[in-house]
């Protein structure tokens, strides 16, 4: 199989950059076009809800690579231009600036955008958090200790609650589930996190659906919940999940559903690949199709795609142990594997009461995930039980020091 002459990467965030860097590291010296909708050089998103929102880092600190490192990649870098249409027959991508870019291999890394509440896109005081501009706008809104309502208690909502509280805002966290992150981490750690947020003065409203954002004079002044109860606020953050950016692929023949539908090699069709938040691929180890919107996966999948592009027939399935971390107050939460949908739970080190622990999650009698709270090394050790399929009984028995 011959090496391609040109690779076009649509999306210049972590996954796109990782693909470009890996291609170069592997010796690819053809043309690499990296297309980014934003005008900024590739930057990192996890610090947006942490160091950038709190103001502890200058904004430039999120650049993933400095100017020299970026120049060293010899990219055909198209910033401020969006991939708008794809012709897989002619192998051409059309950009929003009207230019056409041809490719031998295309990598789709166009990511996701925040879901919004209907009718709130242009309302002052309603925020989402995905881009650097979103983060600096929300940071400005946090000055002056406002009343902030956060709609949605996933990782993003919970992290912002933590930062906003420490910045002096009066924070209400509204979730339609029973506890922050309980849909991912289960009721035990969900409850632990509710307790942590309440201890820090956050009002946590659970099992509540936000029906509408209250607006007067073009400005948000609160939210109304199903049932009629209202919560007054100066600012509203909507963090209710994301939508994959796949609309530009309409009519291209690339199959999309919840993301770009790929096989186990992250390939979506002849000459077309996907990486990062937008990629929905068949994970051979889990035996199911997944899409992961987390930072580590973006880097790992970008690397995997670059290698497979150059590997020809020797390509490898992409079967990572997914990794997520979240910082909330003084808690560092680390998740190896996929706890969502588990049917067994056990704390194997530390305790819920101490808020310092390692917990295992099982499904179908196998360990499926290991979660650590402020126990970094033990959590990494427990990852081995996820990486190599381990029977639930064996793992929990050994961990507790009980002879089976």
């Amino acid at each position, binding site marked *: 199989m011959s090496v391609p002459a040109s690779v076009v990467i649509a999306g210049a965030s972590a996954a796109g950059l990782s693909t470009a860097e890996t291609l170069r590291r592997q010796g690819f010296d053809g043309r690499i076009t990296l297309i980014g909708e934003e005008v900024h050089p590739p930057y990192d998103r996890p610090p947006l809800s942490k160091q950038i929102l709190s103001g502890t880092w200058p904004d430039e600190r999120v650049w993933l690579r400095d100017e020299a490192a970026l120049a060293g990649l010899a990219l055909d870098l198209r910033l401020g231009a969006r991939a708008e249409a794809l012709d897989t027959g002619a192998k051409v991508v059309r950009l929003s600036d009207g230019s056409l870019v041809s490719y031998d291999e295309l990598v789709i890394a166009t990511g996701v955008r925040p879901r919004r509440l209907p009718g709130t896109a242009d309302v002052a005081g309603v925020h989402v958090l995905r881009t650097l501009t979103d983060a600096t706008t929300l940071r400005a809104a946090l000055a002056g200790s406002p009343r902030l309502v956060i709609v949605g208690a996933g990782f993003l909502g919970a992290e912002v609650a933590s930062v906003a509280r420490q910045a002096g805002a009066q924070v209400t966290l509204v979730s339609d589930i029973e506890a922050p992150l309980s849909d991912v981490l289960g009721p035990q750690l969900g409850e632990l996190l509710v307790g942590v947020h309440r201890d820090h003065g956050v009002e946590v409203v659970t099992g509540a659906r936000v029906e509408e954002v209250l607006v007067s004079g073009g400005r948000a002044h609160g939210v109304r919940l199903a049932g009629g109860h209202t919560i007054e606020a100066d600012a509203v953050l909507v963090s209710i999940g994301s939508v994959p950016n796949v609309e530009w692929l309409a009519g291209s023949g690339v199959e999309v559903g919840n993301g770009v539908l790929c096989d186990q090699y992250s390939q979506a069709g002849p000459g077309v690949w996907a990486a990062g938040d937008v990629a929905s691929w068949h994970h051979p180890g889990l035996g199911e199709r997944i899409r992961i919107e987390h930072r580590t996966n973006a880097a790992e999948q970008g690397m995997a795609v670059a290698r497979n592009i150059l590997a020809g027939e020797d390509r490898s399935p992409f079967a990572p142990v997914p*990794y997520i*971390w979240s910082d909330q107050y003084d808690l560092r939460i680390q998740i190896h594997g996929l706890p969502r949908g588990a049917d067994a739970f056990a704390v194997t080190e530390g305790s819920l009461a101490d808020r310092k622990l390692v917990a295992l999650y099982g499904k179908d009698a196998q360990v499926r995930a290991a979660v650590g709270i402020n126990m970094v090394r033990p959590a990494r050790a427990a990852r081995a039980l996820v990486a190599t399929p381990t029977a639930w009984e064996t793992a929990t028995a050994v961990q507790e020091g009980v002879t089976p």
Partner: protein
Amino acid sequence: MHITIDEDKCCAAGQCVLAAPEVFDQRDDDGIVVLLDADPPQAQYAAVRDAAAVCPAAAIAVQE
């Protein structure tokens, strides 16, 4: 090859330890990366490049 670490950026993921256990470790208390060998032997180059690439906080810089 010379490795430098930005400890402030490190998020304690430990992905670098998984990729290159002879070059990286983590502190016991907070999991921040510990550099075992800033100038590793050539046999470690590929693993170190992977570790830097997979670091979810872009905390590892490699000069070659």
